[in-house]
């Protein structure tokens, strides 16, 4: 099953639409709630990152019986130093993002923690690609 969601920078009202839909689908598939939790937390954090930092993005979801793979690709400023961005507590989030309860520098490390396979690539001035893959059993 393939799903595609559009995300707009700054649109906090819709951040979480993709993770919420995926959660409902995985629940209907009868997947273990602990596995669902890891997957949806990772997707949600990635969605929030797009809303917080990018101009726009897409969440591309591929659900197979044994595995879910999600690619979150955005057009945005990109990340100059990925290693630094992966450091817990490091954040470039705006005051507005912090007021929403995010921007603590926990997003990318938390995605990595909840993903079985995590990959990130970024080009400064163009955008960022995040891949998340998790086994479903």
């Amino acid at each position, binding site marked *: 099953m393939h799903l595609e969601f559009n995300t707009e920078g700054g649109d*906090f*009202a819709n*951040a*979480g639409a993709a*993770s*919420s839909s995926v*959660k409902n689908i995985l629940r209907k598939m009868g997947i273990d*709630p602990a596995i669902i*939790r890891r997957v*949806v*937390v990772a997707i*949600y*954090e990635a969605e*929030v990152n797009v809303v917080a930092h990018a101009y726009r993005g897409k969440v591309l979801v591929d659900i197979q019986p044994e595995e879910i793979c999600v690619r979150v690709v955005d057009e945005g400023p990109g990340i100059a130093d990925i290693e630094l961005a992966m450091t817990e507590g490091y954040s470039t989030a705006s005051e507005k993002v912090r007021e*929403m*309860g*995010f*921007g*603590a*520098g*926990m*997003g990318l490390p*938390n995605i990595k*923690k909840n993903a079985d396979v995590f990959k990130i690539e970024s080009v400064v001035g163009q955008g960022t690609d995040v891949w998340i893959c998790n086994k479903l059993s």
Partner: protein
Amino acid sequence: MKLSEISELLHTSVLCNKDLLSTEVENGFASDLLSDVLTIPVHNTLLITGLSNIQVLRTAEILDIRAIILVRNKQASDEMIEMAQRCGIVLMTYSGSMFKACGILYSNGLKPVY
């Protein structure tokens, strides 16, 4: 602890899902930072927060959080109440501080997440 007991102890206003007040929660977590909430191993958890926006509800939905108490007399928007209703989350407001809410609930037996 039952949500009805929590509501009585704090004299909260229950904004929606009053029919779910018989639900039991195992533990509580208090934070104004959703980034932190997303890193905790919640299970049948009550979220106590002074943050009042739609992302609090979205975060609770993602984590299967059963109930939210908005402290410091923070008010919920219609959109928040509607989403809480839809997701089966009991949303309450409390006029006191986060510290006081935590103190009362902890001393009455509600466990911390860790």
